[in-house]
């Protein structure tokens, strides 16, 4: 049990949250906070890389680009111009289980921002010309982030192919060029009709807003969008591995080898307590110079340049439904060290599972983690995105405020138990072979 001193020391954020569902099924979360004249607006659609069809790898992300290319009442380029000339910023990103679109704006642009999001939920302008242009842009995005960069896409693109079996979980979410090139306007329209229904989305607005007035604006702009069926989401879960898997990935540009060790972890939503124990384990292993793997691999054994343990395939523990993954990555100078690194990782996990944590270790790691989670909520845009994400993935925006308390309830025993599940026969090891080594 955590000491009462710890619980008292841990501050918890509190938010006013208002929730509402429109007749067309759009779920709305409002989080008023009038301390600064800025608002965040986010629309999350319940479709991500895991839902793209075979032969269409990268389609969810390509489609995200198409959502910026004009809509029912807006020409190409107008979306960007309206947001930015109002003093705001925008972006969108594609995740494994969802896709988000968002703006941070001065609060006097609130209605404009709502209009812009409603307009593309109503009808994006998907044309041959826009598709061809954004295909080129996306290929250049992949070149800059993956193909022309040492360690590009490592491990997020390559580890899932070793760790998971189903197409949904194992394919390259950025997409192969051949698949991207075969995408058509018809595919995009089908994708929109199927997945971009109001009932398949969450709208969150946070910051300088009046609740009643904002609900009226939302009803006015989003209410007329026709109701469509919410698509059924398949269960993508895969049971833990029952034997070790090892693969090699050649990186012609990398000057030093690297390794990614992945483990499948269970349903984050139904098993949140266990998931939080896994999250604290990741911090015990690699957060800062006092962490287990930094001390062992960097400072004592001098085997690696850096090491990192994280929960969630993109590094955000709350970003995906079943399945999720626990990953340990390291860069190291000598390719012959791999077995020693794996042995040391196993030994450290075993030490936690067998001997537990040092006095004070859990308290300090937990205090820091709570501080990090709150720090991320200081930005109105991050708050907006977190409320929307927790509503979409967990069905509970208010879980954001409860996390410190839930973390405080995680026992040392739960962390030992989490460590005990990360066995060698349950891991997938992807070795990056450095083709650029001299």
């Amino acid at each position: 049990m955590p000491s009462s001193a710890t619980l008292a020391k841990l501050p918890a954020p509190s938010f006013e949250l208002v929730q509402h569902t429109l007749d067309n099924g759009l779920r709305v979360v409002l989080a008023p906070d009038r301390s600064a004249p800025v608002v965040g607006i986010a629309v999350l659609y319940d479709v991500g890389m895991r839902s793209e069809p075979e032969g269409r790898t990268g389609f969810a992300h390509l489609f995200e680009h198409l959502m910026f290319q004009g809509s029912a009442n807006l020409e190409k380029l107008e979306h960007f111009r309206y947001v930015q000339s109002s003093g705001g910023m925008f972006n969108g990103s594609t995740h494994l289980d969802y896709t988000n679109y968002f703006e941070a704006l001065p609060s006097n642009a609130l209605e404009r921002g709502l209009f812009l999001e409603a307009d593309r939920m109503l009808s994006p302008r998907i044309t041959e010309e826009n598709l061809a242009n954004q295909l080129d842009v996306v290929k250049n995005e992949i070149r800059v982030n993956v193909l022309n960069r040492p360690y590009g896409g490592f491990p997020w693109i390559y580890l899932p192919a070793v760790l998971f079996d189903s197409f949904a979980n194992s394919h390259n979410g950025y997409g192969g060029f051949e698949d991207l090139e075969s995408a058509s306007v018809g595919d995009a329209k089908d994708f929109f009709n199927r997945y971009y229904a109001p009932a398949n989305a969450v709208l969150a607005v946070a910051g300088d807003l009046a609740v009643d007035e904002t609900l009226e604006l939302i009803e006015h702009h989003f209410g007329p969008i026709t109701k469509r069926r919410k698509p059924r989401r398949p269960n993508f879960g895969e049971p833990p591995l029952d034997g070790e898997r090892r693969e090699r990935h050649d990186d012609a540009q990398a000057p030093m080898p690297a390794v990614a060790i992945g483990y499948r972890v269970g349903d984050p939503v139904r098993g949140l307590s266990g998931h939080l124990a896994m999250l604290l384990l990741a911090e015990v292993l690699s957060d800062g110079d006092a962490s287990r793997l930094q001390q062992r691999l960097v400072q004592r054994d001098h085997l690696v340049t850096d090491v990192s343990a994280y929960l969630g395939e993109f590094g955000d523990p709350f970003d995906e439904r079943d399945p999720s993954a626990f990953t340990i990555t390291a860069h190291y100078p000598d390719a012959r060290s791999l077995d020693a690194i794996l042995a040391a990782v196993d030994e450290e996990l075993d030490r936690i599972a067998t001997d537990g944590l040092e006095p004070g270790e859990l308290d300090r790691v937990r205090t820091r983690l709570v501080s990090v989670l709150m720090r991320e909520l200081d930005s109105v845009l991050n708050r907006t995105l977190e409320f929307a994400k927790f509503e979409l993935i967990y069905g509970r925006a208010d879980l954001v405020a409860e996390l410190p308390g839930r973390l405080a309830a995680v026992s040392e025993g739960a962390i030992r138990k989490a460590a005990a599940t990360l066995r060698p026969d349950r891991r997938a090891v992807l070795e990056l072979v450095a083709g650029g080594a001299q």
Partner: protein
Amino acid sequence: MTTPVPELTKPRKARKLSLAERTLDSGLRVVAVRKPGVPLAEVRLRVPTLSARPTHPARISLLSDAMLTGAAGLDRSGLAASVQALGGDLSVSVDADRLLVGGNVLATNLPALLQLIASVLIEPTYAAREVATERDRLLERLTIARSRPGVIASEALGLRIWGRHPYAVDLPQPEAVAATTAAQVRRLHDELIRPDGATLVIVGDLSPNRALGQVEKALAGWTGAPLTGRVPALSASPAGPLLIVDRPGSVQSSLRLGGEAVPRSDPRYPALQLANLIFGGYFSSRWTENIREDKGYTYGPHSRIDHHVLGSTLMFDVEVATEVTAPAVLETRYELGRIASLPVTESEVAAVRQYAIGTLALGTATQAGLASNLSALAGVGLGLDWILEHPARLTATGVDDVSAAAAEFFAPARLTGVVVGDAERIAEPLAALGDVER
């Protein structure tokens, strides 16, 4: 029939910030700002370290990496554990101008974090064993950094722009790092890491006056002035032919251009800032709309104004597909020539003015954002007033001012450039456009 885009409503004013500042007897300037939001405090200690000594880049880099490896009887993991237990984090970074100790902590634990920072400043250990560990890691990280095309390009451009000035060196040379000893690092700390001329910025959920008292108490033992040497003035950067740096097999070319700009205190600065936004400083810029949204040559071009203590530079960067390298350079020069020789429009200026005002507010709306901005401003003798008064300066800047700044600074003949890519495929097409150098 199209629906009109909603107008902006009346803007709401931001709340006033309360600030306290004091220059301590040691010469350390301290600025504390109350900014509630999350119960945290952000800390930025900026120590000037500019030096023209040839051994300096390697020694200050290693100093930065080894600074938190022990102090006042705490070993490396002991120090890290102490910071973590406060819900805190500390990190050290350097550039040519300064060393920055950055951190954040639960606001109630600010005094304790300041004590730990004091111990690092006053009694750092730099144990030979830890310095050796960090030396090896630094060498490995340099190898990785120099395998990235962007780093290769910025090193080549730095040499072009800065010549023999210390600003040309962003990363140290491996031979110099390998030859650096713990004793040399300790001596450098003793010579340079001194309070006279340094600035400490603290922003958070705190009382500014109480924070000043806490700093005064915690840092009472940190005294003295740095041992400074002469640093040559900047000379005007030469234009000259486009330098081609060969990186065989690159699927993209990294184009970098640089030229002179003016600092934030210059009366021409607001006009130059707006001209830069119109050209390539935001998504709705001419450069982006041309080579991304129209032609698909790139994922995104960016231009920006970099500020150093001795001067400011206009920087342009873009990664383009190898096969369209020459056309992308052609379009870039076209846009540069167009903005330098034809006036900008009223609507372009109105859009970027609002964007600059809005994003300044967003960028300083978080504790971390405000702290980093204030710290950077402090380095050139500016403060919170600059942030508060800047919107009025932008509002007073008209089309003629922006056109004049564009004519003065964006002329392609005034810029110097490099391109890193597969020379075999790009050299000939580039040579067809004008002088190139290998």
